[in-house]
């Protein structure tokens, strides 16, 4: 019997364990496997294999039972996920339904999740911009949170590394606030987006309108072909999963790459309960998992643990990893674990029309989505009554619309002969929010989920700074739209709860000082050296850029560091 146990424990021992298979977990897995470590990848949801498990990917609009609308009953039963722009018949199977993993909203928070192999990498909006020192120096310059323990130079080579493999389309714009990278050709701005860019350049030279950078193979390199991916076909049906591998997802890219090494064991249906800490060894020794099929509790062991469960679930796992040494959660000597959670303020948009350039239109679909305006507010110095600033998306489109008035022959004739309308333009803000101690997630003392794991309580909200920033965004965009001759300008400031931006960050922040942060400059726990966190939980501040590319770079950089330390015998 004893021998049996030893064998069984041996069978459950790996060199490394990665918790999560989304964007950051996929990268951790790929890097660890490529470097020869036998790696167990734990995923709480089901397996989703590239192409094979994209059931809707080639469906025509008329093949959807409700023409892609969600039934009333589904919306009523899922008020949270129904708010997500991509929750429709073609992709609903990749979203967590509200009742599948309940949580407690101490303050309104729309937690949007994808529990499957690939996580939200199947569903993301694929916008990929580097951070710059204007971002990493933010907290130190403006006196909030704690100083980032890294600067742009630390991450730059890893951005390049991640970009080359993932495939990022973009132009070289030469902007210090949005550093250029290893780009595939960028997608062009359309004629009205270009017109707006030129108008803005003339009147407001410090504001830039560039082509949005995105994780699409505009022109694949050999490395992408080696991954089995081909050029993006501009379908812009990405949320269904792409049979061409036209955009970066874990499923199309990192997970199959890791599998090809022969070093990866992928274990779906494995909810992580906690990370096991050995007081004598002074380090983590493994991970406790609940098999969602059998409800069995199983421990897996490894020398190295990467936590990539996605920001909020990473916090949940760490908070639930309690031991004598860490009664308040793994590595939580500082007491800041679960705190300083922040997000991006997406709660303002603005729309207008343009009656010029009517002898032109755009054809096809742009995977990048159009233009991007990097942060210009408070960039070089503090100049407004709010801290930090916002980036903005900008897009113009001209579509054919049918006159739907009347009925009978006239209606039918009109429906079959849609006419080009005028140009429609729109923008949305992506505001940096300031992490606060009160912005936190914690464990409920009594209520547990289906797996006996405490329910998470979320208390994250906007503040005055966000309100001021929102007003400024509307004023600035109105000014620029007016100057460009756009008409029927319509600001839209309807409130949306934090979370719906799907850019939740922080809780296990990086920092120099173990007294005020959880992770060091290598995304390594100050107090538990063999545990690394390289997903959104590690973020000290939020900046305005979409964060995923930074998680990819962090994952690759941290694996490289962890393995070099192992080789030096420092583990």
């Amino acid at each position: 019997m004893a021998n049996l146990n030893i064998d069984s424990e041996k069978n459950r021992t790996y060199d490394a364990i990665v918790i999560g298979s989304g964007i950051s977990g996929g990268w951790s897995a790929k890097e660890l496997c490529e470097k020869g470590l036998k790696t167990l990848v734990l995923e709480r949801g089901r397996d989703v294999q590239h192409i094979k498990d994209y059931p809707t990917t080639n469906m025509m609009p008329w093949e959807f039972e409700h023409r892609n609308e969600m039934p009333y009953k589904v919306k009523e039963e899922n008020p949270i996920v129904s708010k997500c722009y991509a929750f429709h018949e073609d992709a609903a199977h990749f979203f967590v339904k509200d009742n599948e993993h309940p949580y407690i909203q101490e303050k309104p928070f729309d937690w949007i999740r994808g529990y499957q192999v690939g996580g939200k990498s199947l569903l993301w909006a694929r916008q990929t911009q580097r951070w710059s020192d204007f971002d990493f120096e933010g907290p130190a310059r403006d006196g909030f949170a704690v100083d980032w323990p890294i600067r742009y130079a630390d991450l730059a080579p890893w951005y390049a590394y991640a970009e080359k493999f993932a495939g990022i389309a973009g132009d070289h714009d030469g902007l210090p606030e949005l550093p250029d990278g290893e780009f595939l050709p960028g997608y062009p701005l359309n004629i009205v987006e270009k017109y707006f860019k030129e108008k803005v350049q003339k009147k407001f030279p410090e504001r830039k309108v560039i082509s949005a950078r995105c994780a699409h193979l505009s022109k694949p390199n050999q490395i992408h072909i080696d991954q089995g991916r081909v050029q993006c076909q501009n379908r812009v049906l990405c949320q269904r999963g792409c049979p061409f591998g036209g955009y970066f997802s874990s499923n199309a890219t990192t997970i199959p790459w890791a599998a090809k090494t022969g070093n990866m064991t992928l274990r779906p249906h494995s909810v992580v309960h906690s990370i096991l800490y050995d007081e004598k060894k002074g380090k983590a020794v493994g991970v406790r998992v609940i098999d969602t099929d059998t409800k069995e509790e199983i421990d897996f062991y490894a020398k190295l643990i990467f936590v990539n469960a996605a920001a909020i679930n990473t916090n949940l796992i760490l908070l639930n990893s309690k031991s004598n040494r860490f009664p308040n959660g793994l590595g939580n000597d500082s007491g800041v674990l679960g705190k300083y959670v922040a997000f991006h303020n997406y709660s303002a948009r603005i729309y207008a029309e343009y009656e010029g350039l009517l002898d032109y239109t755009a054809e096809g679909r742009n995977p990048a989505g159009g233009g991007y305006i990097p942060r210009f507010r408070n960039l070089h110095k503090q100049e407004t009554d709010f801290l930090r600033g916002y980036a903005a998306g900008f897009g113009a489109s001209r579509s054919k619309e049918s006159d739907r008035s009347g009925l009978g022959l006239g209606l039918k004739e009109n429906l079959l002969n849609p006419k080009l309308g005028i140009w429609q333009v729109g923008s949305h803000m992506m505001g940096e929010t300031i992490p606060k101690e009160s912005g936190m997630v914690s464990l409920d003392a009594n209520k547990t989920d289906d797996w006996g794991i405490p329910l998470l309580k979320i208390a994250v909200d906007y503040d005055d700074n966000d309100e001021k920033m929102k007003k400024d965004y509307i004023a600035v965009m109105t000014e620029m739209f007016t100057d460009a001759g756009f008409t029927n300008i319509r600001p839209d400031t309807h409130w949306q709860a934090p979370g719906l931006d799907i850019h939740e960050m922080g809780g296990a922040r990086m920092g120099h000082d173990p007294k005020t942060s959880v992770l060091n400059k290598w995304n390594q726990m100050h107090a538990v050296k063999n545990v690394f966190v390289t997903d959104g939980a590690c973020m000290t501040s939020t900046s305005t850029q979409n964060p995923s590319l930074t998680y990819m770079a962090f994952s690759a950089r941290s694996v490289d560091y962890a393995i070099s330390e192992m080789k030096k015998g420092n583990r």
Partner: protein
Amino acid sequence: MNRRTAIKQFFIIAGGLTILSSCLNDGGASIVLNKLKLSAEDEQFLADLVDVLIPKTDTPGGKDLNLHLFVIKMVDDCESPENQEKFVSGFNKLRKQLNLANGKETENKLANLTDKTDEKIFFEIFKSHAIQGYMNSEYVMKNKVIYKLIPGPYNGAVKING
């Protein structure tokens, strides 16, 4: 009965979409409904009405494409209980006022419904789903206003001829 025939009887094609048909021969609607209660007679009236909205010409009309079934399906699954109620009561009121045999009169009547009445709300819901089903039908998307799954390269500055 061979399997193919059996399957045919279970499914009805509405605008290219297959809808589970009702197996019951009870004078009810021909498709499975969860909320709405419609008789075969009601269904026939809606079929005639959808042809008033989108008549048959040298191309198929609403009835040919089974758009009335699509509307019923959408109202049954996707509309709120309040809208479903208005839809049914508006329908019951309106059908008594319409003489579908007289096309001109019907068109006039439908074009001049009083705002906020159940009749008007019914007809707005009916029309919007009928148009949705029509524009998203296999026939229209393949033959008239073409939908391409793979649209080809993006061109952001296409000069319009003429």
